[in-house]
């Protein structure tokens, strides 16, 4: 490459060339010092799946938060003429003429098959019913205060209902019910994990910091809880919720039941972190200056644990969502009139329903997407927390 070596004279001879080369390469600054935060953000952005999942979750949560707006109907809006109607196709092209139109659909008409006695639906192609955006419909309450009646989209004819994901046994729009059900399923994940963080990190921190008898008792308790199979334990606890409680209370009860197992994992994580952090010299330095335990926990332990706790918590959310779905699917979770994805999936509990009305599995798809997205997000966050690894 360059001529640095060789005899001394030769080296002098080549000096000029070397100088030129060094000046050229010395001018551009190839290395930039990134702050930890910059490194973390870069690391996260480079993980495509995590980024995608994050965006997906933001969209899903936004939709469920403004469920009334995004859902064309309310969760209880039923139509007895359209029970178990299949998903209706949204069309842009007239199948007969081949002309393009604004989005429209053909209404379904039910006819009983006299051999099987099943209700069979056929499209009635006489009239195109346009799909209208920002259509006025059933009034709803957004964010608990604003009463409004505009929906993102819907049938322009109130008499002809649009079920893009089909309907259920009472002719309620499944898509709308999924959006409303997401409110419960997704918030159970968040609230369950908040309880998990609060209980798990406090107990874990104390148990790691003080050790001794308290630690011993807590660890044995955690081992006991974790040695039960998860689902039966949840079921047993959920069954203990009094049936006469109002649905909101049951919801809270389910959140607590789900957090009851999850806190143990987080508490172990926190304990392990504290055990390693409390041997750091900066903690020793604070102790040698006479810092109180509260100060050490607040100033030195919590900020250094926070990122790890957030990762663990993110990965605990899908577990909680699955737990709620499982319980509701089995009929011991949230109760009607509340809706959740697991409860909706309960319609698919019979094998013949899956065969006849396969769209009742749609809620499962939403559970799948949410759970996978949370797992990818947790993975991405885990990479991000340790920005110096590669």
């Amino acid at each position, binding site marked *: 490459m360059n001529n*640095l070596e060789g005899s*001394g004279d030769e080296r002098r001879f080549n000096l000029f060339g*070397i100088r030129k080369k*060094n*000046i050229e390469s*010395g001018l551009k*600054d190839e*290395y930039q010092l990134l702050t930890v935060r910059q*490194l973390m953000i870069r690391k996260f952005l480079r993980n495509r799946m995590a980024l995608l999942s994050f965006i997906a979750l933001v969209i899903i949560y936004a939709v469920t938060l403004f469920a009334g707006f995004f859902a064309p109907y309310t969760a209880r809006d039923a139509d007895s003429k359209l029970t178990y109607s299949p998903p209706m196709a949204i069309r842009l092209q007239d199948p007969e003429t081949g002309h393009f139109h604004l989005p429209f659909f053909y209404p379904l008409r039910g006819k009983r098959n006299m051999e099987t006695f099943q209700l069979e639906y056929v499209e009635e192609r006489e009239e195109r019913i346009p799909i209208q955006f920002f259509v006025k419909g059933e009034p709803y309450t957004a964010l608990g205060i604003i009463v409004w009646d505009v929906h993102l989209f819907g049938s322009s004819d109130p008499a002809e209902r649009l079920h893009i994901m089909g309907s259920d046994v009472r002719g309620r729009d499944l898509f709308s019910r999924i959006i409303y059900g997401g409110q419960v399923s997704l918030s159970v994940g968040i609230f369950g994990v908040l309880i998990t963080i609060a209980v798990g990190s406090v107990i874990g921190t104390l148990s790691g910091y003080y050790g001794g008898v308290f630690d011993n008792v807590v660890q044995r308790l955690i081992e006991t809880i974790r040695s039960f199979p998860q689902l039966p334990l949840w079921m047993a606890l959920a069954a203990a919720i009094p049936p006469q409680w109002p649905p909101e209370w049951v919801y809270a009860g389910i959140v607590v039941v789900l957090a009851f197992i999850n806190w143990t994992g987080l508490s172990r994580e926190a304990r392990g972190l504290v055990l390693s952090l409390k041997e750091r010299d900066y903690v020793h330095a604070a102790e040698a200056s006479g810092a109180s335990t509260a100060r050490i926990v607040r100033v030195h332990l919590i900020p250094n644990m926070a990122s790890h706790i957030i990762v663990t918590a993110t990965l605990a959310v899908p577990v909680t969502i699955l737990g709620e779905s499982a319980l509701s699917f089995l009929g011991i979770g949230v109760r009607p009139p509340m809706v959740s994805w697991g409860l909706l999936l309960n319609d698919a509990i019979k094998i013949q329903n899956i065969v006849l009305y396969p769209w009742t599995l749609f809620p499962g798809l939403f559970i799948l997407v949410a759970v996978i997205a949370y797992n990818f997000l947790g993975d991405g966050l885990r990479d991000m927390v340790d920005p110096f690894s590669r």
Partner: protein
Amino acid sequence: METVLEVDSLKTYFYIEQGVVRAVDGVSFALQAGKTLGIVGESGCGKSVTSRTIMRLLSPNLARIVAGSIKYYPAEGPPIELTQVDPYGDQIRDIRGNEIAMIFQEPMTSLNPVYTIGQQIMEAILLHQDVSKEEARERAIDVLRLVGIPLPERRVDQYPHEFSGGMRQRAMIAMALSCNPRILIADEPTTALDVTIEAQILELIQQIQQDNHMALIMITHDLNVIGEVADHVIVMYLGQVVESAPVDDIFDNPKHPYTQGLLNSLPMIGRDKRLEPITGSVPGPHERPRGCPFAPRCPQVMDVCRAESPPRFVLGPASDVACWLYDETIEVGHDPG
């Protein structure tokens, strides 16, 4: 003198998220059989990356040999250009461990905890030599005895955690020696050890080197160790060799201001003089100086130093220095001689 290894203007750069790190940026030296080359420098000077480049241990995804050559001269046959061999290929595997062996700083992380010491030594022997398992075991016991491990017949079946720190380093050395390598690279072999154990290990390495007429590269930050074992020394700073000279010259007549600064910073027993540290600290990769890497900390810095990197000026048959003070065509404020 028989040259066994020749490194010529070697440059190894790392390509990471933040940009390019020029870990090794122009290193040249020649290694003779039976002699010890000391590589000394502070953290981040590229001394370990140099040794890992020679062994081709760096992942090609991360580190690239940008320029230069590493010629290994086998006992028979033509020289091998190590920069050209496939880092995962058979050729380097035959050389690694067999002809060029390496001892690392931290023996605990270099030994696999789930295999016995004997299994790990035998693996190296079986890989490189055509011997039976029994013969390999005999040889493993022999090398353990050679490195001074008591009761080698019993120790051979023990796991690394049953060895103390010093014993582990001995086992590492035994493993490195198991195939009679022609070159031994010792990367900070005593840094993690206590001073009495360090003395044992240094004695041992030197003893074995003399007995086997091995070439030794001793990489360390400790000038005292260099002074004890090395024949020839290269001083590295920010990936470059700033001075290369026989060991006595380095200590008695250091030429480069950095070498002089290092010696003045070193507490020496019996010298009742205040230390004269080099000012500042080793710059990070983001603040790499443009000209001479040492210019920002150099007490004798001149304008030319800040603008251009100095070439190596030959001062004697075995010594050269990369410092503009030794360019006779430049008027220097004081006499460098």
